[in-house]
């Protein structure tokens, strides 16, 4: 396997910015510019586990959970769906079937209770459907496995992971999630000044796996 260090040596520092993401895909780069390139690639990345239809419905759901609004971009822009799609092909594979059944049940519930597919509803109607799903009251009629509340809390948990977790996993694109909560960023050394009251340290924006300090997950 070619290490990032070798690539940098071979390509020269100036050229490496463009070359690294293009040539190695999974390699993580260090500047904001390089992240933008990688994130564009991620947006276009083919789905790994969800069907196109499922991904579109899930996108509409997470767009209501953490919406893009006056307070900035939301879960869709952060790539939460990409995070979930990848995780369902890996560490969360045990939840794949719950997504298949849950998404289908949610769509059935939307049509039964509101007379329209979820994606064609107004935001207000979408929210009212999600409130029913969260409360568990969508459970019976739509044929959720167990309570619809269980499905809701699973999607919420994964959406939060995909919005606020390390960008290495495909979400938190452009550090949207970390900017939203005001996280000053991953540092490997923190000074006394960085822990003072009333003064946050300057924001740094890097993944845990930028550079070569750590074995990748």
């Amino acid at each position, binding site marked *: 396997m070619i290490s990032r260090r070798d690539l940098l040596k071979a390509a020269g520092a100036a050229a490496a910015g463009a070359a690294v993401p293009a040539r190695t895909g999974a390699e993580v780069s260090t500047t904001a510019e390089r992240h933008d390139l990688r994130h564009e690639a991620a947006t276009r990345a083919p789905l790994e586990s969800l069907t196109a239809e499922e991904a579109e419905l899930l996108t509409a759901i997470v767009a*209501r*959970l*953490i*919406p893009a*609004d006056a*307070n*900035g971009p*939301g879960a869709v822009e952060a790539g939460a769906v990409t995070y979930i799609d990848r995780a369902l092909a890996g*560490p969360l594979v045990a939840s794949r079937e719950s997504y298949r059944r849950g998404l289908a049940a949610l769509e059935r519930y939307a049509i039964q209770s509101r007379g329209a597919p979820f994606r064609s509803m107004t935001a207000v109607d979408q*929210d009212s459907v*999600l409130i029913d799903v*969260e409360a568990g009251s969508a459970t019976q009629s739509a044929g959720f496995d167990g309570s619809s509340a269980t499905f809701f809390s699973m999607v*919420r948990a994964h959406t*939060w*992971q995909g*919005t*606020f*977790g*390390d960008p*290495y*996993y495909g979400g938190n694109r452009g550090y949207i*999630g*970390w900017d*939203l*909560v*005001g*996280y*000053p960023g*991953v*540092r*490997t*050394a*923190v000074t*006394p000044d*960085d*822990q*003072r*009251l*009333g*003064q*946050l340290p300057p924001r740094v924006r890097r993944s*845990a*796996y930028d550079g070569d*300090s*750590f*074995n*990748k*997950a």
Partner: protein
Amino acid sequence: MTQTLKTADVVIVGLGAAGGIAALPLAEAGLDVVGLEAGTRLTRRDFAPDEIRNNVRNWPQAVQKANHEVPTHRPNPDTPTTRAASHPMMNGVGGTTLHYWAQSWRLNPWDFRVASETTRRYGRSRLPAGTTVEDWPLGYDELEPYYDTVEWETGVAGRAGNVRGTLDPLGNVFEGPRQRDYPMPPLRGTGFTDLMAAAARSLGWKPFAGPAQINSRTFQDRSPCMYHGFCNRGGCHVDAKNGTAVTTIPRAEKTGRFTVVTRAHVTAIDVDQRGRVSAVRYVTDGTEFVQPAQAVLLAAYTYENVRLLLLSKSRGFPNGLSNNHGQVGRHYLSHAQEGRVTALFPFDLNTWYGLPAQGTAVDDFADDNFDHGGHDFIGGGNLWVYSDRRPIGAANMPTFGRAPSWGSAWKAFIRENADRVNVSYLQKTTLPYEGNYLDLDPHVKDPLGFPVIRITADYRDNERRLNDFIQDRMERWYRAAGAVAVIRSPLGTMGPSTHTYGGTRMGETAETNVVNRWGFSHEVPNLGVLGGSVMGTSGARNPTLTIQALAWRTADHLVKNWKTIAE
């Protein structure tokens, strides 16, 4: 095909907080020691500052043994069991000292004598109904030299409050007398912990920086702490956390007398015709090995210590090894460490960095440090606040009834308040009771077909009343510091926990205890047990340092009495 290996002097089962300590004094004494560890070795390169890996996906342990053996739990025999998805502890050389919080407290002298001291001060009737608590067979004074040894050999940072009776108000004046100070000053304070300390003083309380098995400066050629915020269920990327993987285990290996065997899945302890332990059986990649030994130290976690004893049946021990008095699994308790209080402040706290051990403690309401004459419980709690937060955790903060849990209104709330929340850690005296115990689950098995542990246990009135009392104090503390809202969490259940006690309790009599005052079985003279499973009371603080002091003492006893015990 079973392979029988060369006889070792001592086999240690499990190389975590306890076994990893015992290896050093044994190897330094010239004994040939084999350590059997289910997990693998992990290094600082495995410890990325990654919340998803550490806190969401339950750690990069390469071997998932414990997670396949999660105990079942029921509060009482009339209730069906439930089972958590993952185990609170991890497998690896160093065990859970790799990713623990590293708070390294000595127990209070009262914790060793709860039965007699309660009787003396308040009368015997104040011992809660149904408790099986006994005084420990040793007092604080007898363990003090071993506390001191572990603090100095592994490296504990802290501020002494009582050196040979001389009190220092900047340390914990309620602690038992110690022979000398800590080897390192405490971890530094933060703006937030300083604020909380000032608030505690305004209430007339005595705040202090708690002790941590973490380097506050370079120690034994290892780095000081970098305070970067990922060692709460994460390992240290600069080896500043003094778990056994970077302290006693490598030193024991350097003697040339200590062999570490990784990926060794121990299944049973064999006995000979004299009723003495003769070997430990383990499986690696489907091959069974028999490791003969002159003496065995069982040093897995509480659940696995009890399970291995119960599974190791023989003609002489038909109900499990060292269980002819029916005491294996009895006197179990899991520490009342939930029931937290969460506070919302009207200003940013800047607690994005730091670690759970970087905090401020109040011990005024712990143990028997205050008069219980007017209270309806015994014991107390340690109040602890600290600087530690990561983004996913922050985004999952409670909204204090001020916003829904998703949508635009939630987003506005989190944008303003993600750095304005703090969660306290309140550890409280927990007692053993008749009816709280561990046994083998009759239905649930691990992948090898062996039953997992079943926990039958629940908190009683003493723990619930104490929880209310401590939450009152914590709320008062937060409000004195400016908090505008608080949430009190429930005490929870006695299900699988990181702090568990009993099951192989230490005591003078075989009728109510499994091991003697030295940690050796009352029934099997060359079998020692290490870990929280020998402790009969919890105290109001993390157990690891006490477990390690006891482990060192048991190993020391074995060395000094080798001929009597092992031959």
